[in-house]
């Protein structure tokens, strides 16, 4: 039995995991980051668009401030966010961007003088102030009042992740890749690390840690069509859910991005629309202004995705062998702009579609993209339910996104939350000692060993793991897609109950030796079905429409009954549905619930209306 001990164990070496790791290493603690893939292949590297921070350096960002950013974020979340956290985020974001600049991110900078930009497909000029020359520039993203998305061409996530990983190497953070955490070590009250399987040799190792961070990113891969990397499979959340005591927040809040390409579901960035790209239907007619006269293509993602689906349901989608889609048009941005500022988009279109976006339209449709849901933490990033367990990034429900995340806020969240949670982890490590209980570790280790043996020998059955996964894919998409309703959701919950039973009977077809990848999937299929069940069950119970959660049978946003957050735990391992609890969405109301200003829809108000709490007041 391999045992490795450390102060902080980061499960996940994406932006969130590494940022926390750096903070701890900087303060003299030993840190190990685990990752399924080499750190730089984490999904953060795929983010193209950029990161929001109210720096206000660019002409179109003039007058921006954390307050404006705050209002955008709260509206974007459809008042589902924790306003204390949102405030924390907007105030710290500019510092985080500057720190990234200091560490080496080649942000695009302000070029002074008249510059041509695009909005709604039309060019216009803006004057960049000479005194701002060389400061961090920003571009436009959906759902924001100002241009505030900092970017490096369209490789923002890539550059920021490379910079952070460089920094981690400098700080001596030990990043162990091709290792997958498959269970947490805990005694029901304290988390003591994780059991991990090496994806090079198949060996198990017990990592003992005083503090454990889940930063495993999103779980988009419980959907078949997702913009997420194939490693975004929810493994981290599964380890948390399996503890039976750690709740996952707002599992029904799943974001669909308007522009996944058809057929491969690869994302083309919101920056396309930010820079002036438009959406067209089968008649090549630009339909978004009809639905959203003010923001058009740049309303928040939930709204645009819904409008697109609505429009396609009217029969105005473009038929294709892979189902209906719409067109994204960026031709008018011109060859120079596309080949430089939107280069990755250009490459994706050319190499996966054979489409040249300078001359041709890009086939797109709304595609699963982001998990607002995650391990529920307090504003310090400490998970509910287990001491010593933390979470950050997309894996966490820190909750600045509520029911819809704005473009460019997730990448920013990873480093801002990383910075903040890193601080609290350091505090925790400085002030607490942990007693490692060897029997907990041995139990956890043996349990995983036994699971692996059972899978290899087929002791529970010989159910095909891929068959189970395909059934899950079909079911979750039926119930928990963009538009949801009670009937379909109930059906999905029932089906997932059956599928869960099948998942428990999975056995391998191959020999399971070494880094066997069928085994990797088999080890988490049950957990994935549970996650899918959390999504569907929470969505079934939330009888309102808020942000990305849209119930056709309950179209109003119901602040009276549902201004809260779902907390899902899997109380007993043999349960077939999660246990749901609820907590208030936010303890402070800097901005009381109101209209978002886009998306339409009726609101059932909260009575009595809450008073606005002054800025920066903690609950």
């Amino acid at each position, binding site marked *: 039995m391999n045992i490795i001990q450390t102060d902080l164990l980061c499960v996940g070496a994406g932006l969130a995991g590494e940022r926390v790791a750096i903070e701890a290493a900087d303060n003299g603690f030993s840190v190990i980051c685990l990752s399924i893939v*080499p750190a730089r292949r984490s999904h953060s590297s795929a983010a193209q668009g950029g990161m929001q921070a109210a720096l206000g350096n660019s002409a179109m960002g003039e007058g921006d401030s954390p307050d404006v950013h705050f209002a955008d974020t709260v509206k974007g979340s459809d008042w589902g966010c924790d306003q204390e956290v949102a405030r924390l985020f907007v105030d710290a974001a500019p510092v985080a961007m500057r720190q990234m600049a*200091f560490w080496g991110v080649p942000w695009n900078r302000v070029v002074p003088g008249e510059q041509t930009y695009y909005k709604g497909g039309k060019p216009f000029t803006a004057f960049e102030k000479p005194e701002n020359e060389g400061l961090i520039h920003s571009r436009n993203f959906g759902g924001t009042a100002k241009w505030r998305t900092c970017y490096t061409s369209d490789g923002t996530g890539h*550059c920021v992740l490379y910079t952070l990983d460089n920094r981690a190497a400098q700080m001596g953070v030990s990043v162990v890749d091709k290792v997958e955490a498959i269970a947490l070590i805990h005694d029901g009250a304290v988390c003591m690390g994780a059991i991990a399987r090496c994806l090079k040799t198949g060996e198990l190792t017990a990592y003992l840690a005083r503090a454990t961070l889940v930063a495993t990113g999103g779980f988009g891969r419980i959907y078949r069509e997702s913009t997420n*990397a194939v490693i975004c499979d929810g493994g981290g959340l599964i380890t948390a859910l399996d503890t039976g005591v750690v709740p996952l927040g707002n599992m029904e809040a799943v974001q669909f991005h308007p522009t996944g390409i058809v057929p491969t579901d690869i994302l083309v960035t919101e920056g396309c629309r930010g820079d002036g790209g438009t959406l067209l239907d089968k008649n090549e007619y630009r339909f978004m202004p009809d639905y959203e006269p003010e923001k058009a293509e740049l309303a928040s993602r939930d709204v645009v995705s819904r409008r697109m689906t609505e429009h396609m349901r009217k029969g105005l989608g473009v038929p294709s062998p892979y189902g209906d889609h719409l067109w994204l048009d960026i031709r008018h941005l011109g060859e120079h702009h596309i080949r430089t500022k939107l280069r990755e988009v250009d490459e994706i279109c050319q190499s996966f579609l054979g489409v040249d976006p300078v001359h041709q339209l890009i086939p797109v449709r709304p595609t699963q993209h982001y998990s607002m849901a995650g391990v529920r933490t307090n504003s310090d990033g400490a998970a509910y339910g287990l001491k010593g367990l933390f979470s950050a990034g997309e894996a966490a429900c820190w909750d600045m996104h509520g029911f819809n995340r704005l473009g460019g806020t997730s990448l920013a969240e990873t480093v801002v939350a990383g910075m903040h949670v890193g601080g609290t982890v350091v505090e925790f490590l400085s002030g607490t000692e942990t007693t490692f209980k060897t029997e907990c570790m041995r139990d956890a280790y043996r349990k995983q060993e036994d699971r692996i043996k059972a899978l290899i020998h087929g002791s529970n059955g010989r159910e095909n793991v891929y068959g189970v996964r395909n059934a899950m894919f079909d079911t979750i998409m039926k119930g928990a897609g963009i538009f949801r309703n009670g009937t379909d959701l109930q059906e999905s919950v029932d089906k997932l109950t059956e599928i869960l039973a099948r998942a428990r009977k999975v056995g391998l077809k191959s020999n399971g030796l070494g880094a066997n990848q069928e085994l990797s999937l088999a080890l988490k299929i049950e957990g994935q079905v549970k996650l899918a069940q959390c999504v569907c069950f929470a969505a079934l119970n939330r009888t309102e429409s808020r942000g990305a959660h849209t119930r056709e049978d309950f179209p109003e946003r119901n602040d009276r009954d549902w201004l809260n957050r779902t907390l899902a735990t899997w109380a007993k391992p043999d349960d077939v549905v999660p246990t749901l609890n609820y907590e208030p969405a936010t303890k402070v109301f800097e901005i009381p619930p109101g209209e978002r200003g886009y998306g339409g829809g009726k609101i059932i108000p909260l009575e009595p209306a809450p008073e606005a709490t002054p800025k920066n007041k903690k609950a």
Partner: protein
Amino acid sequence: MARMLKFNIFRYNPQDPNSVPHMQAYTIDETESMTLFIVLNRLREEQDPSLQFDFSCRAGICGACGMVINGRPGLACHTKTKDLPEEITLMPLPIFKLMGDLSVDTGTWFRAMYKKIESWCHTKKVFDPAAQEERMDNAVAEAIYELDRCVECGCCVAACGTALMREDFLGATTLNRVARFMLDPRDERTEKEYFDIIGTDEGIFGCMGLLACQDVCPKYLPLQDVLGKLRKKMAFAAVNNILPSFLRKDIKL
């Protein structure tokens, strides 16, 4: 008419005592817009669940899926079958340690690389959270980004004859990384310090100009230009103090 594609895939599981390296043949029907990502996943799901290979982003941006496709290193996820003949041979990248079948360990290689060249901005300044960011010319930022685009897929190393023959050769991706920091005004390393990293036969003077790196790089990094400029820069750095002043040169990257 849809083609039937024949795949010859290298198979070996070092963790299985009964496994010996061999080529295994598979056939699969071609579908529209098919990529090797789709092929390999279908093979694993439908024909052989023991098949090992790596993908992450499946969008050509993370560099996880480098393999030798019909003789040439490339990214499997953005290789379309319609650009390939009916018979396709897939091999793991050479040079990197084999994990099993098509999966290799690039992580260890690259981490050793970061350490060797200290792949980070060296500065004596301390970050001041209250201060405005230091200014930078946008053109400089763009030039850095151009070199920062490397996805560490390892294709350039696997394609380089020099790297194949000499284990200690740094490889194009490493030299490119060093060039990236040379360009960056935030990195305060001197020319001499850079020379100590790459001014050797393991570094830039080991490169024989085979340009396979340039020809296989899936992100089209300007490796030819970078290597040429680095050689000139380092070569002049070595002789500038003995050259008469009119021959001295400070090469800009």
